[in-house]
């Protein structure tokens, strides 16, 4: 029987990995992967809490909503990256420096 702590530790680790990826990776698509890790960390939290603590469906439903929204967000983000690639030939974040000051 797994305990709640185990899930919380996994999700915290996943969250940190995601945040680290977002902060350090230069490739736009890799950053998106980091965001997915963060969202899935939250998903694990929601489902685990809903299972162990409260026996209402709120947590599971929230997780489903997050999955759907994450898909929508990635679709839009990938479309934008595709446009950036068509315009500049790269999706590297540090080469996108036309706007600064």
């Amino acid at each position, binding site marked *: 029987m797994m305990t709640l702590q185990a899930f*919380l530790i996994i*999700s915290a680790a996943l*969250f940190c990995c*995601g*945040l680290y990826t*977002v902060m350090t990776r230069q490739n*736009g698509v890799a*950053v*998106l992967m*980091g*965001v997915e890790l*963060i*969202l899935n*960390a*939250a*998903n694990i*939290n*929601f489902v*685990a*809490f*809903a299972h162990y*603590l*409260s026996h*209402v469906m*709120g*947590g599971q*439903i*929230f997780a489903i*909503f*997050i999955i759907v*929204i994450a898909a*929508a*967000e990635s679709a*839009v*983000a990938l479309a*934008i*990256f595709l*446009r*950036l690639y068509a*315009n*500049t030939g790269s999706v590297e*974040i540090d080469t*996108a420096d*036309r*706007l*600064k*000051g």
Partner: protein
Amino acid sequence: MLDNLASVGYFLPEFALTATILVLIVVRVATKDPQSVAFPFLSLVGIGLSILLASIVPAGEAKGTFEGMVAYDAFAVFFKVLTALAAVIVVFMSMDSREMEGRPQVEFYVFMLASLIGMFLLSASTDIVMLYLSFELVSIPSYLLAGYVKGKVQSTEAAMKYVVYGATASGSMIYGFSMLFGLTGSTQIGEIGKALATGNLPVVPLVLACVLVAAGFGYKIAAVPFHMWSPDVYEGAPTPATAFFSVAPKAAGFAVLIRFFYTVFAVSEPGSSVWRLSTEVDWTLLFAVLSAITMTVGNLVAIKQDNVKRLLAYSSIAHAGYMLMGFVLLTPAGIQAVLFYFVVYLFMNLGAFYVVLVVGNSCNGEDISDFRGLGTRAPFMAVSMAVFLFALTGIPPFSGFIGKLYLFAEVINRQIYWLVIIAALNSAVGLYYYARIVKSMFFDVPESTEAIAVPAIPRALLVLLVAPTLILGVYWEPVARIASNSIRMLAF
């Protein structure tokens, strides 16, 4: 709490916007002209209808609709009307924009209306599921609006930065929500507040959750240190979209910030007009410091900007800092000051962006040097720009002064003197960079002295934006009354 069927009657403004989006798509299929004037016209009708529906349904008693997912109260109605008004002005702005080759295509309006529905729901949501959904409904169409100009690299780059920051911020917010859910076992913010008020919860996860949630909201209102996206996005996005971002999502962000933190972390003292914190988390101090840093960074960085859109981006960061002052006070008067400031800010900020748009259309640029000699080339525009800029500075007799007066007075009442001093110094810094544009318009010699023709519609709209900026500076009592009636939030 009303069930789903009974709630429908309180959801008419959102229905009107949804219907408008569907009509727009159908009309696009039926017409041949991708830039038909029918699209902005239909959007105006739809938004106007939603304003009408939002304001005629009697506010009466605050209600929780859709099984407690969405609140129906005066506070939400205020922000619905405010964001919808911003959208109306932006539709007018979009009708003649060089960046978007004349008039934008139908997608622009569809994204804007979708984002507007998100703001309606965001300012009313009382459940973290609804809150997250509407947060994303505001954000996702905004990314697309920022990247609307297909061939312009800056616009695409703005969209890319917006989406990367936005996704990360909402991700960390949702992780904070998951911790709150774990601590309290509920997704209703009222229930969360009650559970936290019992007091026997571990402090460390609570503080962590509070900070993560604040990061998400801070991103939406562009508060330092979550502001990094906003100058780039404001500069790269087409000007009408920038004007929209600078007012509407910020207003919705403030609405949800106020509703969430007051419901979850504070309870109103019976018999007095002051709230008190119900938990160990001292978010008022957190946000007071955030407010001071936000206004200081915004103002100091604005000094060295040469692009007017970028300068206004930093100035709007500074204004978010001023408004946060009212939020941290835990008094109804503080919230009233924030609401009043938003009305004032709506007109002066959109007005400034409108002038930037018209100048950009005729001079092909948005740098301060493009404003040289505007005083002789287009005197009416230059004078209105000066009015907007002085109002943004907060000089009497313009409306910005009254807005700041309300905020400052309440902070002084609550005896947080250090914050007032920082804010006053910041206003002085603001004068410097706003006056730089005014000086360029009236005293610098332009390269060409040829007059800039301003068509009738921008001229009329500028009058409509200048008038409230001037009138609210001398006769603000009705708006202040509306603001004070609108602080009633759904209580739990």
